[in-house]
């Protein structure tokens, strides 16, 4: 029988297309699963307003459920409460680091101009002697860093609160 738990088990295995090492559950963008009449409603939330992965994630959720014979599905995208990197699971943070992307660290208030860059350990050699190259990177959710010891350039999954 199809239950919330069985849907959850299927949907939780859908991976983020841009950070394929993470599932949508690890990322915290899978918000809820509920039943409305005969329809299973899967609620997701975008990381950033313009995140181009959302459409792909929606169709992957539908495909994953369809492959188990579940077709009465509606995907709802909600903006509030707005996604924050605090919803990234501990497991997710470990996976990110192993994949070579530094997970978010506590950051100071963004309203302070020229605030000190956060200390982001290098995912390769673990040195804390790293430098921000750019506030923006390959996707909206990341910034670009370089390790000053092993010289590895790496992505940092920036803190959003």
């Amino acid at each position: 029988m199809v239950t919330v738990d069985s849907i959850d088990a299927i949907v939780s295995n859908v991976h983020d297309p841009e950070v394929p090492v993470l599932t949508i559950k690890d990322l915290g963008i899978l918000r809820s699963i509920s039943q409305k009449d005969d329809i299973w409603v899967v609620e997701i939330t975008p990381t950033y307003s313009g995140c181009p992965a959302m459409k792909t994630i929606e169709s992957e959720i539908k495909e994953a459920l369809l492959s188990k014979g579940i077709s009465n599905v509606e995907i709802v995208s909600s903006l509030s409460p707005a996604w924050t990197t605090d919803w990234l699971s501990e497991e997710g943070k470990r996976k990110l680091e192993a994949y070579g992307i530094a997970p978010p660290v506590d950051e100071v208030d963004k309203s302070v101009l020229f605030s000190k860059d956060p200390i982001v350990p290098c995912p390769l050699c673990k040195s804390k002697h790293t430098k921000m190259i750019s506030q923006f990177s390959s996707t909206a959710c990341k910034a670009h860093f370089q390790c000053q010891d092993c010289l590895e350039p790496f992505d940092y999954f920036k803190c959003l609160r």
Partner: protein
Amino acid sequence: MLRLGDDSLILGQRLSEWCGHGPILEEDIALTNTALDLIGQATNIYTYAAEVQGENKDADALAFLRLEHEYFNAILTEQPNGNFADTIVRQFFFDTYRKLLWEQLVHSSDARLAAIAEKSLKETRYHFKHSAEWVIRLGDGTEDSNERTQLAIHSLWRYTEELFYTDDTEEALQALGVIPAIQSLRKPWLETVEKVLLQGTLIVPEDKGYFGKGRQGMHSENMGFLLAQLQYMQRAYPNMQW
């Protein structure tokens, strides 16, 4: 709502013109990331606007299929990219205003608009940090960068007054608690702008600028060219997708 969405779309379109043309790779990425956020915010606003309008139009129709006089963005947002200083100053004036606006819209009596504001505010804070730091860096940089930034400030200043324009539409929405009093944002806007410009050893213009007519659909000559590029594919191949 179209005034809000059109500001995002048109400025997002302008910033995306930097794609592949940034002065350094990092800034190419920064400007286009900002463009992506703005176009994402426009999508959220248009999706809601289309539902409210209820004429079987969708967000894409609102974005791509209106005529020039049916767009209500502020004239500042359609100004050409110019040099890097022009783009950064335009962005700084806009980000400062937009951050103040989202901070108020979070408390809107309209729950959907409040949710869009809550989401967008986090992104706009980041854009503000980026553009404000660059204004200071350029102003306090070389003689050349200071001169270009000061020129950009003088040429774009005239368009800033329009950001605080209010007419019957805003007043009606304000009475319902949907939007804040837009004019009340001008004072904190000016305070922030003055602080940043002074830190960058730049001069704050004394004149007040003028009320542009973008909010009523009357645009500068730049708008037609921008729309021609924005709309070309949908006009040439209606309903095309990829």
